[in-house]
């Protein structure tokens, strides 16, 4: 067999394997669309549930998930970026950073239901926020931190060293160098990591189960100390807790949640592509 032939066979095998990876995701999305699309209409997106949630729409759950996603970003983004800057630019390698990294690895590995229980103990009960948006956002924020920190740190470290040297050589301080050179150049990577983290947070049920989610709450929350409905928990409720639930509403809800998470992912890749194109080096 010639080298050209082995090359061609290798390419073919890899193409097929890659295609196989794509098939399940297409099937999942296709099935949810197939089963749910009939339920999704303007009323479904803009009305509160009625009649034991078997009729009407899921508007409060959509709004709740959007609010929780924003809340997660507000909690997670400043803490994560600050930690990433510290780890990448200031910390070096010492006992403190080894502990921080160890903590991050472990945080990333903790099951989400444990975050939910922690949020119940720490924010709902101990801090006295009650079952509320703020407790849920804090719980989800902590949960997303490890992934956002590590992607942000990678983005910061990927900025070429010579830009730091040049900036410092022109009399900029270390912080000025970080603020004016490093962060703008690392921003696409940081935002990508952030949005992917939010995508995960938006779809989680367990962390919000005890901290924020309402079983049925047709009106919208008035403050961050109120409960709210949220899509993943609503989906869990109507799929398992409500007898006589029309299947199309279950899958319609799943479709809306899937659409929300997929559009976050899509935004992440658009942000990355667009900002990469702006970059000149």
């Amino acid at each position: 067999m010639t080298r050209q032939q082995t090359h061609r066979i290798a390419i073919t095998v890899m193409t097929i394997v890659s295609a196989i990876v794509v098939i399940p995701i297409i099937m999942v999305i296709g099935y949810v669309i197939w089963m749910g699309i009939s339920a999704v209409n303007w009323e479904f997106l803009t009305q509160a549930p009625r009649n034991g949630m078997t009729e009407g729409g899921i508007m409060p759950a959509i709004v709740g998930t959007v609010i929780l996603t924003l809340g997660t970003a507000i909690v997670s983004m400043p803490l994560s970026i600050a930690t990433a800057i510290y780890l990448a630019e200031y910390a070096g390698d010492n006992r403190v950073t080894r502990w921080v990294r160890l903590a991050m690895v472990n945080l990333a590995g903790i099951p989400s239901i444990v975050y939910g229980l922690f949020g119940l103990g720490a924010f709902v009960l101990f801090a006295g926020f009650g079952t509320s948006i703020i407790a849920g956002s804090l719980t989800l924020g902590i949960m997303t931190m490890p992934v956002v920190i590590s992607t942000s740190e990678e983005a910061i470290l990927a900025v070429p060293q010579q830009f730091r040297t040049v900036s410092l050589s022109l009399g900029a301080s270390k912080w000025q160098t970080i603020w004016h050179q490093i962060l703008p150049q690392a921003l696409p990577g940081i935002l990508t990591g952030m949005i992917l983290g939010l995508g995960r947070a938006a779809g989680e049920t367990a962390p919000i189960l005890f901290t924020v989610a309402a079983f049925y709450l047709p009106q919208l929350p008035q403050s961050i100390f109120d409960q709210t409905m949220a899509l993943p928990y609503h989906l869990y409720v109507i799929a398992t807790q409500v007898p006589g639930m029309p299947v199309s509403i279950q899958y319609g809800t799943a479709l809306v949640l899937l659409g929300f998470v997929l559009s976050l992912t899509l935004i992440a890749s658009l942000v990355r592509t667009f900002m990469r194109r702006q970059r000149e080096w």
Partner: protein
Amino acid sequence: MDIIAVKNLYFTYADGGEALRNINLAIPRNQIFVLFGPSRAGKSTLMRLFNRLSDLSENATHQGNVLIDGNDVFEPGTDVYDLRRRISMVFAVPTPLPGSIYDNLTYGLRMSGMRDRAEMNRRVERSLQQAALWDEVKDRLKTSAFALSGGQKQRLCLARSLALEPDVILLDNPTSGLDPLSTATVEESLYELKRRYTIVMVPHSVQQAARVADQAAFMLDGEVIEVDSADKLFIHPKSKRTEDYITGRFG
């Protein structure tokens, strides 16, 4: 008084590699002072100590003194940011910062807290003229600095240092990647510049050293072998090792 004086300077990197050994130098004002020698002689390391860019090498240690206008740069009270504006470095690889030509030229000024637009515009024009780049870029100051050619980028980096109106310009092999024509342009601008500034330069070659230097120091393995005026050093070197190097017997 000499603008830079180095006394009994030793420098050791974190891995224990001794980069500089017992350096003594006096660099007078308004001259082109050339540090030359084979690679790994410690030329760049020495230059980086003049404005404490050496701080970036973590856990490196030094002994001895580097005096700028009689003040030791390693004194605890030294304003290192101000020092780097006064002793400004141009690197071998021309590295524009992301942004426009204008942004690049004003970066150091903005970081020092300058807000005066008119003053910045004045310095942009003047530094570009001094670096012989004004005519080529005056109509596109707001366009990206990355669109410039290699030779233009290097002159931009020179102008970026000049905009700070420093006392000393450190040039670390500023013509390394340039074609002969761009090299000549840069060298010519140096003769103009030394009337206003003191220039310390690591040259691209012995030939370039001989062309541009007023004074020169030959370095080898972290030591200064010989310092003299260029007229003497390149024609009648005192040390055998200097002679061997400039006549091309090693290096």
